């Protein structure tokens, strides 16, 4: 409670108060249930780390000089960042739609762009918070260094923004929770598990290497991992270009949907 009041302490120009309030509300929303929205995904990622490193360490060597457990960490962090960025915007929107309280935002003078920015930033912040927590815990267990921090940050930001925008699209499109589950189980989960979180795609047969290159998650994971180790399956600049372009395309689609009032205004 006290947090709200303190947050008001930050002086914001009245012009930006609308979107700032929406962002603040969206952040408080996931923070209020932080056990479920931050702690739970951190535990999940650490369980993956524990099990996969225990089973595969010594059997798999992906990069020279990088132990498998260390190799696993950036992929797990990025996978959690992406999944949680998507979960934040999509679940907030579908809940507000089902509960009917999205009307409180729709009745305001907020523009479609302000709406987009607020939901996007909240998704990015949730994704990065989860990622940061996993990183901090993993640091205790494994000796891991970041060679190119700016590259790592760029991929984390762009990746969470991409999934945050995709979450807005899913949240607007879905009318029911089971439709949202389709997105989660048939798009987000397969794409993140088949993106090279647990392996290098060079260990796959040529055909599956090609298939992997159609998966946008692959570029986000690989680029993010490059930030740590300075090596990856493909050039980080190519990945950056692909991820950046994908984000722009999704952002434009989202903005177009919001502007037209698709499924929000009849």
């Amino acid at each position: 409670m006290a947090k709200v009041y303190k947050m008001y302490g930050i002086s914001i120009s009245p012009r930006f108060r609308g979107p700032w309030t929406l962002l603040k509300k969206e952040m408080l929303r996931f923070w209020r249930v932080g056990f479920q929205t931050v702690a739970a995904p951190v535990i999940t990622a650490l369980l993956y780390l524990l099990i996969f490193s225990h089973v595969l360490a010594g059997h798999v060597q992906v990069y020279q000089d990088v132990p498998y457990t260390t190799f696993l960490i950036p992929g797990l962090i990025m996978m959690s960042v992406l999944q949680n960025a998507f979960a934040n915007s999509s679940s907030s929107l579908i809940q507000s739609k089902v509960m009917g309280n999205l009307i409180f935002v729709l009745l305001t003078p907020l523009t479609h762009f302000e709406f987009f920015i607020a939901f996007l930033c909240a998704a990015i912040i949730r994704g990065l918070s989860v990622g940061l927590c996993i990183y901090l815990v993993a640091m205790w267990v494994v000796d891991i260094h970041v060679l190119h921090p700016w590259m790592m940050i760029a991929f984390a930001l762009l990746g969470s923004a991409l999934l945050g925008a995709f979450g807005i699209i899913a949240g607007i499109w879905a009318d029911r929770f089971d439709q949202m589950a389709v997105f989660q189980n048939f798009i987000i989960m397969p794409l993140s598990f088949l993106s090279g979180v647990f392996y290098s795609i060079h260990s796959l047969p040529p055909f599956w290497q090609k298939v992997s290159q159609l998966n946008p998650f692959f570029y986000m994971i690989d680029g993010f991992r490059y930030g740590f180790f300075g090596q990856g399956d493909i050039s980080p600049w190519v990945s950056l270009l692909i991820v950046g372009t994908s984000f722009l395309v999704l952002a434009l689609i989202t903005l177009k949907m919001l502007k037209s009032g698709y499924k929000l205004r009849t």
Partner: protein
Amino acid sequence: MTPAIRIDNIHKHFGNLHALKGIDLTIAQGEFFALLGPNGAGKSTLIGILAGLIKPSAGDVSVMGFDVVNQYQQARQLLGIVPQELVFDPFFNVREMLRFQAGYFGRGPENDAWVDEILEGLGLTDKAHTNMRKLSGGMKRRALIAQALAHKPPVIVLDEPTAGVDVELRQMLWEFIKKLNRDGHTIILTTHYLEEAETLCSRVGMMKQGEIVALDSTANLLNKFAAKKLRLTLGEVVLPVEILTMLRSQEKGIFTFALSDMAQIELVLAALRGANIKVLDMQLNEADLEDVFLSLVGQHHG
């Protein structure tokens, strides 16, 4: 003076359904206006267009001179809408919701005194720190009204605000809304409780099947359509044909007639005498908006 609301030839089609058929309506600043009509008349669609939740198929709507489509930011800034559904955000308490709602409209800490005033006026001060989820239905309704007022809009629209609300709360709500009206806010309400519209509103619009069928001051409407109501206890009888047009309702041998003037009493009694029907009891009452409503909504039935 710029009207609070100006609705100019609004049409709305939902597929094949012509939900609004060219509505024209101007509401002056400071008015207390009631929009009445049966379910499906188009009241909520009209309010949805005003709120920017529904896009009109044709026509223009403006709030204090600002077009709700092209100048939606200014228009919504001046408009407070109380939705019909009892919706709430389960993550926050009452005061947080009010602060958020004011914040969306660009208002910051300077608005807190107003938020306190609304909480006080609606009897929500004790509940300010209670989570929305834990409020009773009546309290949720008050919070919903408070949210619409958080940015201190000059024009306030209440869509069925007293549906399912107990008598005590209804009285309190109306006292509060009347005070807002005295302070200069324009109030527009839709309601099913005709007596509310009658006691509160200076002007009434009645809608039916997407059209406005009557628009006048409450007093004029009452005078124009039915001056008196005659309630006769006759028992199980068949009425003479010539007075059937005046019959408004019939229940357990009690017949209610709407009379446009006193001379018609004689007409009714003469017809009954002619048919050899005995009057067991008789009551003469002032007509209310319900009679106007029934005579208007009834008259189009084919």
